[in-house]
């Protein structure tokens, strides 16, 4: 079956005073119906830019310099403005990180969920509100009939994020992009939101792109994972495989920072420092052709310095990695 989302060779650059600077380079991944693809990586590695590029919501100075984004076979990057509005919120939608600021303070949550239905389904105001109540129930908001008339400032962060999810799923999109949907919430609420997302996914068969720092959530929710580093995909595969058998030195470092991963969620609060990855992600514009991880890599040898970024080497059906030495590092 052809994937719902197919990102092919996507590159994004920033137009700055000092010329054009690559932000994302040759990113490719597919997400099938009902599957979840996690994007992980340190702050600034380009996860949000990937999401925004797919939605065609890149900030002013950012441009797509290569690639295609196929949603159900249709290239989003080539869609006319009218067609694009028909896709957003309808076939693909997005949940933002900050539930406190992602809802309009001047409208009730019912109005905001209803607005999506009014636009894409042509519903009248009353029907839209009616359906909004149903969606509030679906995202497990208690007293939905009363809360549909509440304003965002009357809800907690967790509830607002539920409202965002209801808005995003109102039109039964094929694709949902969740950009760190729980970062702003406290720990127990985070778990609830992740549970909710996976329950809803079981019902709707939506393909999800989940951006997160939470490797526990990746292990639990994601079918596949792509690890980004400095705008490049350096390891990709099924989440089982990547977590159990990380090959890239950077991914291995990430996993080492979460030692309890295999111990199960009960130990989620244990904060043990095993191994930290020294150094920092090279900033935009300071990225050469060679392996982006080179300055921080304990395994670096001459070939890493001499050669450009290694190609994503397909190791087996479940994993691909971009490292010259992965066979030695993780045989």
């Amino acid at each position, binding site marked *: 079956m052809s994937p719902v989302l197919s990102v092919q060779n996507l590159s994004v650059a920033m137009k700055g005073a000092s010329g054009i600077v690559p932000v994302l380079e040759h990113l490719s991944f597919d997400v099938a119906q009902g599957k979840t693809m996690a994007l992980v990586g340190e702050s600034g590695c380009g996860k949000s830019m990937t999401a925004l590029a797919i*939605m065609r*919501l890149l900030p*002013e100075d950012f441009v797509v310099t290569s690639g295609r984004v196929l949603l159900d076979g249709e290239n989003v990057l080539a869609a006319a*403005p009218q067609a694009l*509005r*028909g*896709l*957003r*919120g*309808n076939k693909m*939608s*997005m949940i*933002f990180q*900050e539930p*406190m*600021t*992602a*809802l*309009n*303070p*001047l409208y*009730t949550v019912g109005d905001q969920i209803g*607005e*999506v239905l009014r*636009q*894409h389904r042509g519903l009248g105001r009353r029907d839209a509100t009616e359906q909004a109540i149903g969606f509030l129930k679906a995202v*497990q908001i*208690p*007293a939905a009939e*009363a*809360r549909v*008339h*509440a*304003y965002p*400032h*009357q*809800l*907690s962060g*967790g*509830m607002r994020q539920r409202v*965002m999810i209801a*808005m*995003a799923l109102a039109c039964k999109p094929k694709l949902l992009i969740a950009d760190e949907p729980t970062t702003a919430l*406290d720990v*127990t*609420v985070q*778990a*609830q939101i*992740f*549970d909710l997302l996976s329950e809803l996914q079981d019902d709707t068969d939506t393909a999800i792109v989940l951006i997160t720092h939470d490797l*526990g*959530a990746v292990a*639990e929710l994601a079918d596949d994972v792509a690890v980004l580093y400095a705008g490049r995909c350096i390891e990709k595969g099924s989440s089982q495989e990547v977590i159990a058998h990380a090959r890239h030195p950077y991914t291995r470092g990430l996993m080492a920072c979460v030692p309890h991963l295999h111990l199960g*969620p009960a130990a*989620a609060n244990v904060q043990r420092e095993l191994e930290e990855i020294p150094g920092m992600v090279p900033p935009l514009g300071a990225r050469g052709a060679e392996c982006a991880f080179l300055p921080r890599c304990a395994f670096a040898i001459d070939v890493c310095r001499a050669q450009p970024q290694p190609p994503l080497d397909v190791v087996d059906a479940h994993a691909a990695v971009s490292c010259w030495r992965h066979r030695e590092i993780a045989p």
Partner: protein
Amino acid sequence: MSTMEAPRAREPSALPSRPAASPLAAMLRQFGRSPAGVIGAIVLLALVLITLLGPTFYGIDPLDLAGAPFTPPGADAWLGTDYLGRDILAGLIYGGRATLTVGGVAAVITIVIGVTVGALAGFFGGAVDTALVKLTEFFQILPSLLFAMVLVTLFGQTLTTITIAIGVVSWPTAARLTRAEFLRLRNLDFVKASRAAGAGNGHLILRVVLPNALPPIIVSATLAIGVAILFEGGLSFLGLGDPNTMSWGLMIGQNRNYVLDSWWTVTFPGAAIFIAVLAISLIGDGINDAINPRLRKRG
């Protein structure tokens, strides 16, 4: 992650006890707590009522030569007569209607032009913004009184021309303010979220950003009424009022040469203008007070 227990206890939001107060209703309630705003509103309402209902109780035509010229205030004419013998009180009542109408309509023109220009500039940015900012600056550096005088001289000394001229020279302030609000708001998450939900530019400008930009625009609209009233007075004083329609400004303008001998001819309309403008600026203060604590609370 098996922490599904007690989600209700974790999320403490109280159910709205009364039907959720809309932000507008909350603002009105807040306005009611501002003494300045309430006093201003009462005074302005009184002025409006006087000009609307006055004629039914006080039957003298403001343009009639009702008595001897320069009759001082007294039994013959409560507030005296002017240099032609027209009744001052009748002038205040009927003239108030014209003056307040000019103020209101000119403020509407000011706000409509200013908000349109500012919203488009701030929302779209880029070349649109550059062009509209140039236009705004051009209108702003023109000496506005002189420019209005030219317009009135060219197109005729009628109340309509005067009103339009005031609107046309006054909008840059509103445009700058609106542009700044749009620049601030257009990158906020809820605007991005609306765009991600498929909203088009028209919807984003009118239904998403504009309502959030409204509070300072309302304040500036209020103040624009006061400015327009003063402007009308200024034009009339310089002899560019509409001679066929009684207004407070016209009364001052036509009687200004006699102010030393017959103080009442100019003092009463002057006081009327002063009271009206003061009331309006008090209302502006009240609205400001009503808005700002809310903005701070929302963060």
